[in-house]
């Protein structure tokens, strides 16, 4: 158990390509931090640098207060779960779990005790003497996690561990990982490109883009108050509607509202758009319904704005009476608007102005 401190870390590949720019991040002890971002944003590179599988071009990474830049992965006392599990195919499940402990010279009875305990926690006892290829994807995933648990490391590193599983199993394993992490209270870094996974798992969410950190915070606060246009568009499904203000339509819709100066893009979550006009000041949009996607608990309505080619997505609860091709008007409360400036890519309001 330990905190991880990343200071001014940089990664440059072959002298020219910069994958990570001067990144600072501190991961508190016992927390599950999720790195999320589109592919190529440097999240896996950062994780591999923490693991010691990738060299650090500049800056320092410290685990439990000690700088580990020059240490081998094995000396950093971390355990990693890989996307393709990376189980040793010629060893039994037991052999896989034991291997790291044996290399460390752990006494035999201690190894047996830990393996038995991990197998019990992960419910892989019946497979202990099988080979990885005789297991299903979900079982292999458990074994990969078991290999991390038995080591009792200072930190767990997860590199997109669920992306090879089918949707149902992924949801199940997500819950198990969270429960496991809660029980063991081991500092964990989790990399994923799936924002649902990121939202549900994280104590701290780190949104990355182009080798930089866009925003760090609790998942809900990031959802409610994205600091940059990138985060606004990336977090949330269906994605936030980002309406440019320079069009005739935008100016008209937001004219009555007092938006901060410099605002030229307004973001509205699909679920904060309502069909009945609220009492408080609001912006209104009308257009025709182009497509209705019923998802079960809610429906996503795609509305083409009148006099424009822009599509707005509205999320309405339950099954809706709205039919395709019908005219429609929706409202958004002033407090639910997210004002941005597209040049700086940042929010234009201050937290106090938008309670």
């Amino acid at each position, binding site marked *: 158990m330990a905190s991880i401190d990343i200071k001014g870390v940089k990664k440059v590949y072959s002298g020219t390509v910069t994958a990570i720019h001067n990144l600072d991040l501190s991961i508190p002890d016992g927390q599950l931090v999720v790195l999320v971002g589109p592919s190529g944003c440097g999240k896996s590179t950062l994780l591999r640098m923490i693991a010691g599988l990738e060299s650090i071009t500049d800056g320092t990474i410290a685990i439990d207060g000690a700088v580990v830049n020059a240490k081998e992965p094995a000396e950093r006392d971390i355990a990693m779960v890989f996307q393709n599990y990376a189980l040793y195919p*010629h060893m039994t499940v037991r052999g896989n779990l034991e291997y790291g402990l044996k290399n460390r010279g752990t006494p035999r009875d201690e190894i047996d005790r830990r393996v038995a305990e991990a197998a019990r926690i992960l419910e892989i006892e019946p497979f202990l003497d099988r080979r990885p290829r005789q297991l299903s994807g979900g079982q292999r995933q458990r074994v990969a996690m078991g290999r991390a648990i038995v080591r009792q490391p200072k930190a767990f590193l997860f590199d997109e561990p669920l992306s090879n599983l089918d949707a149902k199993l992924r949801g199940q394993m997500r819950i198990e990982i969270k429960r496991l992490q809660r029980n063991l209270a081991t500092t964990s870094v989790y990399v994923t490109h799936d924002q649902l996974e990121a939202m549900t798992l994280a104590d701290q969410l780190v949104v990355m883009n182009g080798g930089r950190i866009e925003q760090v915070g609790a998942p809900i606060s990031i959802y409610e108050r994205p600091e940059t246009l990138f985060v606004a568009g990336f977090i949330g499904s269906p994605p936030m509607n980002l309406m440019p203000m320079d069009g005739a339509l935008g100016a008209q819709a937001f004219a009555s509202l007092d938006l901060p100066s410099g605002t030229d893009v307004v973001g509205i979550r699909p679920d904060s758009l309502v069909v009945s006009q609220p009492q408080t000041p609001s912006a209104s949009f009308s257009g025709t319904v182009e497509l209705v996607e019923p998802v079960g608990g809610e429906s996503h309505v795609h509305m083409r704005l009148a006099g424009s080619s822009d599509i707005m997505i509205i999320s309405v609860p339950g099954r809706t009476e709205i039919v395709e091709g019908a005219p429609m008007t929706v409202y958004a409360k002033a407090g639910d608007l997210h004002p941005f400036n597209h040049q700086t890519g940042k929010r234009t309001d201050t937290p106090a102005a938008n309670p």
Partner: protein
Amino acid sequence: MIENRPFLAFLTHLVLIVGVVVVAFPVYLAFIASTHGSGDFMRGLVPLLPGPHMIENYSYMFNVGLSTAGAPPLSIMLLNSLVMAISIAVGKIIISILSAYAIVYFKFPFRLLAFWTIFITLMLPVEVRIIPTFKVVSDLGMLNSYPGLIIPLIASATATFLFRQFFLTVPDELMEAARVDGAGPLKFFRDILLPLSRTNIAALFVILFIYGWVQYLWPLLVTTDSKYYTVVMGIKRLAATADAEPQWNFVMAAVMLAMLPPVLVVILMQRLFVKGLVETEK
């Protein structure tokens, strides 16, 4: 293809049977010849059934040999061949698996150059470089010795290349997982890469053993002392006796014994061999 045409079935079987007979008949004839007395094959009519002298012929060749043809007993030649073939196969596998490991898993200056240098030697088999190689071996005083028989044949670009290709198919994460698990380079090689290469090693062993066993030109050049004759070159000597009819019964007994070890190796390692060629265990 599902077809029911009796004539076609008949024809395909006929072709197959003819093919088998064409290949197998000479071997059968050799076996028959090795069981008859010395004069039986000179009478013009070739016998097609085993004769009564089998044990006698074989034990004579195995223990005494044809000293008139300048050949030692077969037991010595078989032993020489065995030493040579096994040393070549084992040596080639050890050298090439280590060099492939270095090329694939380590970054060092001129790595690519090293790989291509090894690869280019594919163009230079023993037969092409035989004179300079002979000169070197003779200058080193290795004529008429096991090292002289073995060392010039022991480097193998083919095997290095095969191991390299296999290592490239092993996922990088396996190496990374091993590093996180505290396995250094040698440990990773021994605990993970070597067991994974098991079937490949077996397949290569079969191929390389036979390669070493059938070497003819090189042993012919570097051995003048009959103590170091290998069986494949020895047979030639047995057949080419001056001023006399070859004693076919003895020659054929030698041929049969020379054929045996490669056949045994293939049969015993067949399961692993096929596995190694067909599937990669992952």
